């Protein structure tokens, strides 16, 4: 198996102060550039998080704060007054505006309320309000209920998990067939299989759609699940490459002991193929989690069956009016795939390399 290759082995370091200094500078420079690129690349995630923590009022605030924050107030004689940044001779002060006027206003100093009202000459409207960090979690339950995220999660999970099972079962069988059996014309069959990768699925779309509708599967999940029980080129390719890398001696030994090809597959090949199986399973899971086109056409009008991708489009449309809700829902929708990815990233990324480079 072509493991995700590691760094090229470094030559034995020859120690010299100048050389080491240069090495250090290069490492520092490259790492800094990389940090900067990562920061820019992932900045939208920060934007999403910060927006999700803002209330609708904070989003619409004309002073539009970077962090989710609200204008601070100060309670004076039983009433709340807004805190403003007031420039004074002694530097900028944070005073509460008690009696606003056009050209002059009265303030109270929260640090020293006993001093009473302070008269200040100037237009209070040009003063910047004082803000304090004030995140909210209300967007999460609100967006969850608004688009029934629990239902969308359940639906998507069911479709993804059953489809993954189907893809694994069928692709394992087909890849085993392609890797171990002397069937006449098998190379040609394999070429046909691989060439279906460039076949746009639209070319089979309309008859397939009409067929599924005709057998009463319109408005059900079956068209999103059943076709995956018939293997697909990417996964078969990946698994076949992997199976071919497993020495034949072992299955021959099993055969001599009287194992059938099915037993050989189950007890010899599969236990050694866990990384490839994981990769294929993840590919399909992510595909199903993301799929848009087919749920869109097959589930039209069946809101109770919608998947996450389809359900989330409502938020794409209301984004400009309620970004807090949209970003909170986004965070919840991307959490599961991202967590799974982090847990399984090594196996997953190896799989990408095999399907992408070895062809």
């Amino acid at each position, binding site marked *: 198996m072509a493991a995700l290759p590691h760094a090229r082995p470094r030559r034995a370091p020859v120690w010299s102060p100048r050389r080491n200094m240069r090495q250090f500078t290069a490492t520092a420079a490259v790492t800094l550039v990389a940090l900067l690129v990562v920061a820019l690349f992932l900045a939208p995630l920060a934007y999403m998080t910060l927006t999700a923590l803002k209330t609708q009022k904070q989003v619409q605030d004309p002073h539009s704060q970077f962090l989710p924050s609200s204008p601070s107030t100060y309670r004076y004689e039983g009433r709340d007054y807004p805190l403003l940044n007031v420039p004074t001779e002694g530097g900028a002060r944070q005073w509460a505006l008690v009696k606003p006027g056009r050209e002059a206003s009265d303030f109270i100093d929260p640090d020293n309320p006993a001093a009473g009202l302070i008269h200040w000459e100037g237009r209070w409207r040009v003063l910047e309000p004082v803000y304090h960090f004030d995140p909210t979690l209300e967007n999460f339950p609100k967006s969850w209920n608004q688009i029934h995220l629990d239902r969308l999660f359940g639906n998507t999970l069911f479709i993804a998990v059953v489809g993954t099972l189907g893809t694994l079962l069928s692709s394992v069988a087909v890849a085993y067939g392609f890797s171990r059996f002397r069937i006449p014309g098998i190379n040609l069959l394999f070429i046909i299989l691989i060439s279906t990768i460039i076949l746009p699925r639209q070319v089979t779309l309309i008859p397939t759609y009409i067929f599924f509708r005709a057998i009463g599967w319109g408005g059900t999940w079956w068209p999103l699940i059943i076709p995956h029980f018939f293997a697909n080129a990417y996964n078969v390719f990946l698994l076949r490459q992997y199976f071919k890398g497993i020495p034949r001696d072992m299955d021959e030994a099993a055969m001599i002991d009287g194992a059938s090809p099915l037993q050989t597959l189950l007890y010899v090949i599969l236990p050694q193929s866990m990384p490839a199986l994981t990769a294929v399973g993840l590919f399909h899971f992510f595909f199903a989690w993301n799929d848009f086109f087919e749920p869109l056409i097959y589930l039209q009008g069946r809101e109770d069956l919608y998947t996450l991708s389809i359900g989330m489009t409502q938020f794409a449309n209301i984004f400009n009016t309620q970004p807090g809700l949209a970003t909170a829902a986004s965070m919840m929708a991307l959490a599961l795939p*991202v967590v799974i990815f982090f847990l399984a990233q090594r196996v997953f990324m190896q799989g990408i390399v095999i399907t992408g480079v070895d062809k």
Partner: protein
Amino acid sequence: MATLSTTPSAAPTVRRRVSPLLRREINWGLLFLSPWLVGFLFFTLMPMAASLIFSLTDYNPIHPEATQFVGLTNWGRLFNDPFMRQAWAVTLRFVVISVPLSIAFPLGLAVLVNSEHLFAKNIYRTLFYMPSMIPVVVNVIIWGGIMNSETGWLNRAIEFVFGVQGPRWYQDEAWVIPALTIMGFWGVGNTMLTMLAGLQNVPTELYDAAKVDGASGWQRFFSITLPMISPVIFYNLMLCVIGSFQYFTQAYIIGNGRGDPNGATMFYNLYLYRIAFNFLDMGYGATLAWAMFVIVLILTIILFRTQNRWVYYAGGE
């Protein structure tokens, strides 16, 4: 496609010396292949043929009984359809703007995370890959916020750095394709990984020899690295071009399924969807689908033909 048949009669030379043991092996093998054989027949080959037949009719799912054979009318319409021409223009615009960047950007990332000077490479690889896991709808939503013309971070950064007002990305005909391209940067994980693997397969001796000959870093990149990884670039280029014709989800969401603003996101595949599933003109839809298949096939062949000029296969494959 007659060669598809796997029965021994298709290969008479084999039948003569088929021993019972080999016979058994073939049967087992066919049994294992059967999911794909059946799937290929029912979900690929037959629908393809049916699609071609549909393209000769005016099939409408509401009145299937009224379907008539209309000959090549749909195919003729293909060449005189102004909307189709616009969809072509949008798709080509996307290919021209987006494809070079979706090759160059992940290549740059791959070079970066492959650098021997980079500290903690694996963390960067994971982080650059991670956004590829984010569902496309979510991607559109988040970037919609970033590219919001008033409050978005992108325009604020543009104003801060250049002192000019940024464009109205999603709402501007001229800027929506660049906006989609920028959004696409979050999906370059696969390309980056394959490029990275390509980079790591370049033999170190080549670089050492070039260093001895006094080649600079840029010279080494353009004269060694690029030619050596050209097969990977070729593979990704092909996927990108084919993918452009199948581009759908992002355009559908941004353009509200109608190609907003003003048809600027009416990609080929979106137009196909509208014809077939909004206007229910499935005959013409099937024609568009087949035309897409033919276009993709021709593009693939053209790209393969250009291979000799710029793709280098070590070992003379």
